[in-house]
């Protein structure tokens, strides 16, 4: 690219200089021939003589000959040998005053009356300029190339060093040093950004792994009790002779296994929700209908506990984009808990309100609430506060609710009131313009 540019500059400059020389010669020869035509040979000789006096300064060449090319007047001794009758222009060498060869470019002109006129210019300077420019271009190119190579070498060496550092750090992590992080040199360049991103990724993986380990431990711990209970029952059942009693033991074993299975199902469901893409299974849902359905499903249970169970609704229907089955699951888990932890004759209330495009859905109860120290832990799998340990349940209900909320982009918060617990969901409503289109 640079070379091409240089060639272009060279070509333009040279052709400009050459053209200029040609034009000067042409103007001069035309002027001389005009003079001859108007005033005859003597006038021409006079002006030639004048020009010859100045020729040293202008490096011009003049020669006037007769029809047989015998020199009459001029500053070169003889007509050039390389003369070609058919060409007006000629180039030839002469030996200059200090016996140095000089290049001449000249134009020939046949005057009426058989005289030949030659007007030329010493183009040695032009030739030298040409050479000078060419040299400059070649050196320039070489230097550019050298600088480019050197610069490239140093830059790539720097980059390779950084990559090697990252590679080595990664190797160390692979070999088991999971706490190792990629060093940053705080130059705030792309490599720092890469190192930071990778470190964040490693931290996240670490958190997930710790979480996974915790869950694995919790599963093992929580399933050991029912499994050993099951083993005990089966042992007793195997020794039982009375078929009726054996059958009864079998039935209780089946129930125990069902409980285990539902725990596993809940775990799998949480895992599947956490790993599935957000957009899946979403449809336009009338939130009020959904709340009414949950309310209606749980109403008989609440009635059995003589609870004041009621819904406070907005006047207009509220549409949201969500997965109705998952949202139903989340709401039913929370309401299930509210009913479970509220003593008889208490109150459970579902309240919806709207702030711009956000729907606030509160589920309030007059139950025991959650101790402040436990509030941050309730979303963890198998976490059970001391007061709920003796109630039926797997300790997965709220974990599932939190997983669903994360999946559906719903904000959830838990807050202890003076009496009971308030669970708040913040749900994005379909904005009214979308409403018309869908």
């Amino acid at each position: 690219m640079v070379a091409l540019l240089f060639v272009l500059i060279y070509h333009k400059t040279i052709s400009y200089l050459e053209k200029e020389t040609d034009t000067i010669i042409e103007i001069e020869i035309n002027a001389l021939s005009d003079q001859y035509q108007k005033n005859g040979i003597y006038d021409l000789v006079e002006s030639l003589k004048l020009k010859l006096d100045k020729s040293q300064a202008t490096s011009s060449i003049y020669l006037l000959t007769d029809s047989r090319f015998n020199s009459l007047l001029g500053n070169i001794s003889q007509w050039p040998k390389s003369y070609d009758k058919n060409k007006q222009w000629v180039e030839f060498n002469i030996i200059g005053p200090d016996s140095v060869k000089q290049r001449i470019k000249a134009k020939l002109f046949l005057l009426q009356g058989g005289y030949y006129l030659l007007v030329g210019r010493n183009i040695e300077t032009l030739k030298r300029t040409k050479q000078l420019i060419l040299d400059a271009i070649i050196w320039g190119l070489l230097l550019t190339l050298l600088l480019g190579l050197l610069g490239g070498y140093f830059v790539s060496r720097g980059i390779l060093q950084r990559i090697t550092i990252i590679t080595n750090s990664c190797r160390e992590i692979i070999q088991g040093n999971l706490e190792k992080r990629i060093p940053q040199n705080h130059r705030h360049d792309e490599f720092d950004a890469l190192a930071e991103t990778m470190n964040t990724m490693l931290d996240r993986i670490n958190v997930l792994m710790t979480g996974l380990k915790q869950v694995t431990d919790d599963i093992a711990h929580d399933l050991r009790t029912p499994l050993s209970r099951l083993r005990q029952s089966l042992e007793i059942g195997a020794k039982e002779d009375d078929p009726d009693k054996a059958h009864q033991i079998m039935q209780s074993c089946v129930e125990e296994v069902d409980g285990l299975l539902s725990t596993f199902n809940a775990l799998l469901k949480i895992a599947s929700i956490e790993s599935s893409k957000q957009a899946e299974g979403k449809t336009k849902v009338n939130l009020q209908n959904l709340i009414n359905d949950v309310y209606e499903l749980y109403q008989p249970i609440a009635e059995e506990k003589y609870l004041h169970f009621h819904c406070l609704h907005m006047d207009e229907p509220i549409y949201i984009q969500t997965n109705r089955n998952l949202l139903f699951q989340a709401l039913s888990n929370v309401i299930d808990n509210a009913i479970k932890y509220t003593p008889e004759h208490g109150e459970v209330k579902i309240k919806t309100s709207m702030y711009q495009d956000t729907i606030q859905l509160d589920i309030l109860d007059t139950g025991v609430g959650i101790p402040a120290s436990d509030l941050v832990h309730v979303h963890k799998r198998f976490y059970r506060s001391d007061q709920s340990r003796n109630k039926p349940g797997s300790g997965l209900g709220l974990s599932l609710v939190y997983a669903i909320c994360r999946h559906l982009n719903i904000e959830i918060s838990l807050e202890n009131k003076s009496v009971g617990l308030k669970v708040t969901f913040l749900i994005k409503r379909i904005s009214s313009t979308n409403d018309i289109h869908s």
Partner: protein
Amino acid sequence: MKILLVEDDVKTQKFISKGLKELGHRVVTADNGQDGLFLALEEEFDAMILDRMLPKLEGIHILKTIKNSKKELPVLMLSALGEVAHRVEGLNLGADDYLVKPFSFTELVARLEAIARRGAMAADETMLILGDLQLNLLSRQVKRAGKDIELQSREFQLLEYLMRHKNQVVTRTMLLENVWDYHFDPQTNVIDVHISRLRGKIDKGFNSELIHTVRGAGYIMKLDGT
């Protein structure tokens, strides 16, 4: 019933086929998609159990082909618990029911019988009858032994579903899915309370019970002693 079971996992296949045979059903098995589709199209079956993930031909593809053919073959799809939307996709493509592993055998049998008999049941029935209980689908009136019974709308739907599947075990999840139209796992058995309310209206004060609890499975509506 003659049932086609297409399942590649040997253990699951044996467990299902053994269980169904013990209940007196005839079971034909295939362990890959190609054979499964061939059998489904060539032979007559009362119902088909179709695994979603199969070698050679995907379960979803088999389902589409069967539903596009003129064949009336009820299909119960099985799948490992995966993406949230799989169940909806299966049902949208015409699966008659969808069951996620792990499931209990009672759940499988209950659902299989429900979809197999759906075809035999006249869709335009206006009166459901079991013993002295009558359910008029048009006037939405319920009578037992000539006495009018007042039911709330959901109670009526619940009774209708149970009556339509009389003499069949109906599980709690089946009721939630078909009567309440939500697919979810309740933490407590909310359904039991609804059933006990319905019992209070249908069975209480009459000399025989029609709604029976099947331990570890669900409910069945039938005449006492049958």
